[in-house]
């Protein structure tokens, strides 16, 4: 009885899918063959990734390898779409045919960790030919709206397709994978079952790709989808071979709902807009001429309400960040109207992007190890979010709090011309560093009379000891240390070959 019911419901699903997409193979055996996989997709591949991240605190070492298993969507040109999170710090990527189990080694062709999208291609084009023979690429549909029915696809152990319906209940902007990266998402409610290869799952509308599963909150049964418009943007950007990434505005906003705050800003009844509370250096907002205290009333023709939203023709009320980031490209025109000291001012310019590498405190870093320099046991590193996050929330005391605060507002270092903030993160006990073993957390200001603005200047400065002694000035207690230059060289050799077995004394990339 139970079996019967199950097969019946499967059939209904299969039929509706059949009507939507020709690439879905349907087993029309009906009630009589209930135990066979009923539907299959020839556009999905299992993707198995082995990854190994670098240790933020012992930067020459990698952590233990781990694995992620998800589904990739085959696009035209036999490129496979997955989330960036899937391939972060990958050491080995393989594609697997769901049914035959045939495998093919793949590599990352393009990746954007902010938008959380990546495209894979075969490592060896010759071998790929046979592998992709039966595979059909999937098209992308960017047209989903609130209320639309989508389905999440999973693949069972025998290559059978498991389809879970999902209705879009909300479209908004939300956090992606990298801290502070906010883009468009679809949200829906529904239960997604646990299966192998569920790290990344395709979300489909009418047989076309509507998005990738971004996260699933099993407690509240909320499914968040990385939507097709963001994927499409990424693919368009990669098409010409150079990837520019999404523009960033570099402006902090505040709501203007508080009636007394509105009075203070001299906003009249019915006036809307958002208050500019901070303009970051060297980013679009600053180049455009935005100033703290401005009230932004419209962006590229869209009126902005007091929550910082506009009315999107496709999705309705949505954060303005979608206008300047999610749906915009670097170089696009930007026109912003602001109220400044009671007058309307129109600002025009182009959308730009500041890359993580140009930022004084690196917001994220994958696939490459943290930069560092070891000198006679003294370990110097660049201040980065990854380093601070490595401590976890509970252990943030004293020096870590200080470093975290510098990372949050590094303007003082930018003013001094620092490209990175260099600090002494730890000391490997060596004879030349005798007495300094317990140090750590101090900002490096000057070495042998040279101001330190990044690891390269530090590396150079350490080549010029004065009278055989290195003089290192630090921002915090004990402020001043000296190391014998010859002894340091001796210890450097010992660090490579001796007990510490550090492969290399530095990584400066």
């Amino acid at each position: 009885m139970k079996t019967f019911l199950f097969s019946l419901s499967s059939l209904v699903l299969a039929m509706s899918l059949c009507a939507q997409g020709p690439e879905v193979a349907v087993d029309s055996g009906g009630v009589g063959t209930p135990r066979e996989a009923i539907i299959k997709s020839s556009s999905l591949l299992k993707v198995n990734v082995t990854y190994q991240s670098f240790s933020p605190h012992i930067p020459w070492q990698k952590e233990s390898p781990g694995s992620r298993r998800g589904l990739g969507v085959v696009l035209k040109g036999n490129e496979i779409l997955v989330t960036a999170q899937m391939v972060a710090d990958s050491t080995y990527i393989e594609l697997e045919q769901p049914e035959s189990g045939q495998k093919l080694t793949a590599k990352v062709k393009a990746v954007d960790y902010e938008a959380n999208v990546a495209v894979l291609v075969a490592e060896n084009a010759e071998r790929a030919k046979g592998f992709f023979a039966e595979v059909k690429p999937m098209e992308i549909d960017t047209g989903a709206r609130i209320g639309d029915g989508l389905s999440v696809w999973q693949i069972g152990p025998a290559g059978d397709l498991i389809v879970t319906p999902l209705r879009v209940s909300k479209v908004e902007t939300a956090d992606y994978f990298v801290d502070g990266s906010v883009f468009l998402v679809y949200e829906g409610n529904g239960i997604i079952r646990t299966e192998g290869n569920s790290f990344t799952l395709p979300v489909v509308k009418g047989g076309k790709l509507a998005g990738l599963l971004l996260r699933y909150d099993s407690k509240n049964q909320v499914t968040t989808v990385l939507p097709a418009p963001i994927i499409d943007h990424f693919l368009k950007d990669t098409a010409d071979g150079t990837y520019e990434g999404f523009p960033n505005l570099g402006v902090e906003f505040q709501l203007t709902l508080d009636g007394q705050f509105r009075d203070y800003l001299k906003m009249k009844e019915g006036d809307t807009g958002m208050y500019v509370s901070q303009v970051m250096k060297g980013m679009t907002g600053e180049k455009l001429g935005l100033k703290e205290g401005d009230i932004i009333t419209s962006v590229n023709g869209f009126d902005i309400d007091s929550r910082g939203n506009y009315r999107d023709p496709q999705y309705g009320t949505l954060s303005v960040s979608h206008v300047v980031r999610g749906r915009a490209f670097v170089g696009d025109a930007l026109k912003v109207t602001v109220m400044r000291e009671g007058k309307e001012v129109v600002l025009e310019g182009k959308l730009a992007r500041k890359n993580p590498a140009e930022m004084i405190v690196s917001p994220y870093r994958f696939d490459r190890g943290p930069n560092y320099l070891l000198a006679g046991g003294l370990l110097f590193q660049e201040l980065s979010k990854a380093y601070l996050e490595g401590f976890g929330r509970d252990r943030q005391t004293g020096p870590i709090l200080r470093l975290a605060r510098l990372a949050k507002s590094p303007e003082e270092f930018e003013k001094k011309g620092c490209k990175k903030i260099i600090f002494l993160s730890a000391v490997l006990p060596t004879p030349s560093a005798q007495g300094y073993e317990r140090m750590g957390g101090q900002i490096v200001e000057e070495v042998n009379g040279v101001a330190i603005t990044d690891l390269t200047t530090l590396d150079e400065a350490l080549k010029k000891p004065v009278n055989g002694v290195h003089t290192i000035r630090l921002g915090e207690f004990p402020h001043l240390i000296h190391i014998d230059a010859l002894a340091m060289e001796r210890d450097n050799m010992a660090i490579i070959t001796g007990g510490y077995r550090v492969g290399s004394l530095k990584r400066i990339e």
Partner: protein
Amino acid sequence: MKFASVSAAVLMAVSLPWAGMAQPIDLSSSVWDGVVNIDASMQVPDYREPWNGGRPTGGSGTGFLIGKNRFLTNAHVVSNATKLVIRSSNDPEPHPARIVFIAHDCDLAILEAVDGKHFEHLKPMQLGGIPKLNTEVIAVGYPIGGDRISVTRGVVSRIDFRQYSHSGVDSHLSIQVDAAINPGNSGGPVIQDGKVVGVAFQGYSGNVAQNVGYMIPVPVIQRFLKDVEDGKYDHYVDLAISDFPIENPAQRKALGLGEDGIGVMVGSAEPAGSGGKVLKTGDVIVAMDGSPVFNNGLIKLDDELVNMNEVVERKFAGDSIEIEFLRDGKKMKETVKLARFEPYVRLGNLYDERPRYLVYAGLVFQPLERNLMDAHSIQDPLVNYLFDNFLGDKLYVEKPEPVILTQVLPDEVNTFLTPYAHGVVEEINGVKITRLADVKAALAKKNGDEPFVVVKLMEVNRPLVLRRDLAEEAHPRIMKTYNIPQDAFLGE
């Protein structure tokens, strides 16, 4: 210099008296008579709802007679007391008592009975000296486990400079003994050869370390007694510098030191401290008051190597110290007048103080202190940064008393401001806020006829704005709703 790092040392929270007798215990001797039990009723201030009276509690400890109607005990036995009663061993009658002097930085206090006549027949106990290692001592007092007087016995295990956990920030000479010291022993005498060689005051709980108890030694007691001779307690003085031991040969060479092991580097000097007026980072202290200071920061005093702070420890407010030091290889000698280092105090536990605060239209302002941090369990990273790096980053120079917006008591006038609780106040109506007292005047300040009160918080890029007319109308309402009897207490 006495900036101690946070250590695991725990105060025997319940006072533990330790009364001990010298080797030949003469039970007929009157040596016990001067050891009294102290019963304290206390009111623990409420830093969360600072307008409230606090939480009543109580405790018990030991004290002993050191002069005519003068009982010595620990400060932590009688801190925050609302009522004190002393009982002697063979007398069931409780005698009301009061505090004459209290020194939280060295955990000592002197009490007197309201009516001293009852104790006139008792012989005060005499102070001895610093006992030698591995010599026997006894601790006498009223610890848990019974009501009558208790004696435990042990030897002197170690003499060292240690953190005193009552304030949590002060370190002084202290003597470790292996006689059992338990809750209730606090304030009691530790005795050798019939004389008091220390006051039992702290130890470890049994799951941390065994048989480790500490007593306040005679030099610290005598310093306290001398300090109060003029009728008031002036506190310890401090050089307010941090020394960095010189162990590295290159460091020694670069700083121009010889091979004789003399000299310790100044790692930081507090600009507002007494040492900071003369010394700066990178200077090398070679001698204090004529005694050589070694590379590890120890100094030779009375033929013993002790922490160099010990020289300062023995001084009083207004005393001077002569420091010989090297700067850029040049020998220098300066006299430093010693004073208390105020910024340090708020990092420690405060007692016998009514919490200060100011409420305005539901916004509660309080000064940053350890008591406040503990009470509000503030997670905000900026506030924690300020507290943890208050000295290290010299934050006290600009903000001697950072003011925190600890709560926003919700009302329609401030409902949009509730997310900003735990912010650090930077400015009010254009006036920089450096201490709580500034808040009152700044709130009252009017910029022409501007109808707003504007509060700027550190690292919050929008001002918090209240319409003055609405705020003033709401203020009495909020006070009434939240049962706040008084809208500010800014100190005595």
